[in-house]
């Protein structure tokens, strides 16, 4: 063997100890998570990773030992994933997300969100005036299921009592909250985003039809002189809820833009670039829908005074405005 004098063998003998150390660390991190590494191990990890990476480059140049090269490829790959990954835990990620990332991404995509809001408002206006013009359109716009007892055939008194309904007990208001949350709104919101992948056409459709429904609903009450009451019923949670839906629509349009107008990037890179910001605000919007759900489920049934209802509506609008304007500015400047 002496006369063979293989460089690759010598090289391997010198470096193998490093590889074994890294292997042990990475295996531990994979099994029990990065948090299980001690402070000392955590500082050694990047150094060992870089040493192994350099071993890999050398091995590719001098060695023909396929097993060794494949081992190094896999070890370097596994270590790479551990070294270059989000070090924050799930809770810390969530905290940072609400404080910084969500409002920042919102500001990045504000024009997309404005477009989305415009389409929703257009839908509301169309639904409102078309329904006022001819009440028969109401059922066509709303569909049978969503309208419930609120039909043009119902008396004004019936409609009014539905707006100030209190005879549900506390547990059942929570049912309303949960089912509303899990079934309809979050679904619509996530969908409005994900369907942006279809060049934004379904997003447009979803926003516009939801606007029309809202318009038709308020038109019915307007025709009975219940305008003030119906907005007072809708807006305390509606501000947050509609805002969330509009945000998701904006996210959908951002995706569509990335797909249709990639600019100087390749289409794939542009989609990925837009997609990350867009996904962030959708997660944030789902969080907003939770808040809307709590307001709707708990608050609406217990507070019946119209001025208080409006105060809550205005308060939530101001709160969101300030949140998106101020939060996360400091670290934006730093970056």
């Amino acid at each position, binding site marked *: *063997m*002496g006369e063979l004098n*293989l460089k690759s*063998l010598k090289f*391997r003998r010198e470096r193998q100890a490093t590889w074994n150390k890294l*292997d042990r660390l990475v295996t531990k991190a994979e099994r029990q*998570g*990065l948090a299980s590494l001690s402070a000392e191990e955590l500082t050694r990890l990047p150094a060992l990773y870089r040493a192994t*990476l350099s071993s*890999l480059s050398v091995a590719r*140049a*001098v*060695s*023909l*030992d396929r*097993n*060794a090269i*494949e081992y190094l*490829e*896999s070890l*370097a*790959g*596994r270590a*790479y*994933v551990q070294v*270059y*990954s*989000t070090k*924050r*835990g*799930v809770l810390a990620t969530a905290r940072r*997300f609400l404080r910084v*990332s969500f409002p920042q991404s919102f500001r990045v995509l504000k024009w997309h969100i404005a477009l989305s809001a415009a389409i929703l408002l257009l839908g509301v206006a169309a639904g409102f005036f078309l329904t006022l013009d001819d009440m028969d359109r109401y059922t066509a716009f709303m569909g049978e299921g969503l309208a419930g007892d609120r039909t043009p055939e119902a008396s004004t008194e019936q409609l009014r009592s539905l707006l100030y309904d209190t005879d549900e007990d506390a*547990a059942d*208001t*929570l*049912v309303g909250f*949960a*089912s509303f949350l*899990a079934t309809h709104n979050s*679904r619509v919101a*996530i*969908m409005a*985003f*994900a*369907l942006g*992948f*279809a060049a934004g056409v*379904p997003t447009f459709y979803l926003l516009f039809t939801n606007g029309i429904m809202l318009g038709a609903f308020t038109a019915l009450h307007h025709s009975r002189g219940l305008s003030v009451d119906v907005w007072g019923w809708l807006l305390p949670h509606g501000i947050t809820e509609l805002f969330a839906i509009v945000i998701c629509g904006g996210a959908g349009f951002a995706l569509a833009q990335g797909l249709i107008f990639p600019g100087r990037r390749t289409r*794939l*890179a542009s*989609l*990925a670039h837009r*997609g*990350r*910001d*867009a*996904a962030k605000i*959708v*997660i944030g919007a789902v969080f907003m829908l939770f808040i809307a759900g709590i307001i709707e489920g708990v608050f609406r049934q217990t507070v019946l005074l119209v001025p208080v209802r409006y105060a809550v509506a205005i308060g939530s609008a101001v709160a969101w405005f300030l949140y998106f304007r101020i939060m996360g500015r400091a670290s934006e400047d730093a970056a």
Partner: protein
Amino acid sequence: MRESAAYVERYLRRRESGAIKEILTPEGVPLRFTVAPLSNRIGALLFDLLFMMLGFIVGAMPGVVMLIGGFGSGFAIAWIGLTFFFVTNFYFIFFEIRRQGSTPGKRIAGIKVIDRKGGVLSAEAIFARNLTRQVELFIPLTLILSLSLMASGSSGLMPMLGAVWVFVVALLPAFNREHLRAGDLIAGTVVVLAPREVLFKDLVQEVRAEDHFEFTQEQLDVYGVYELQVLEDLLRQQDRGDQDALEVVCMKIREKIGWDLVTWVDPWRFLSDFYAAQRARLERGMLLGNRKETK
């Protein structure tokens, strides 16, 4: 004899399948990953769906107990609904953030999510690739259910077009080389195999110092790197007791390099000596800048 040769062939082909995804690490060293085949992806998904179901059952337990015990049915149903919402939407996000791009199912299937450009796998990317699951996975499932329910087919053109679109999105991974689904496109990620290779002993170490076979330069120049590594794979298969394959290959090589065919040699000893000599020869060539790929 013929069967063992076929076995060797099959083994080699297996090693070469699968698209390679090369990413450049921040250190400037390219790392090669193998794109995860669809079979692994589907396997991982099935396991994850199973775990989601188990998670939902366990999570919903308090609600079910309340429902049976008769304390506030409203609250119980709300609890179950919320559990369902959280499990379906946050199962993947939670594990991929916590486990660096892996979920329990992915771990079992030996696959992993990485950033397509070699950067950090960020939380945003994980959000993006998993939010689209609603459209890619859950809508097609509901559509299949509802389509089979109303098989009479009174539906119009729009639902049909919608269904076609949704299925195109759902089947996207089957039609591109890197098996990207819509969520991967949006997030800029790719799913790769995460194999745990084992470092075996270097075969050269097993060559005895004295009494080994000697080969001339001409004999060693017959083969290239490809053949050398085929031989390495074969020698590492040794412990599986496939003596026939060794015999076949040993005979072939002796013919090819003009070795004496009459005297019997121990195929294991002959081949490992040949491997060591051949590797030394080719590695020396590499250092001088000529890499001989194949014969």
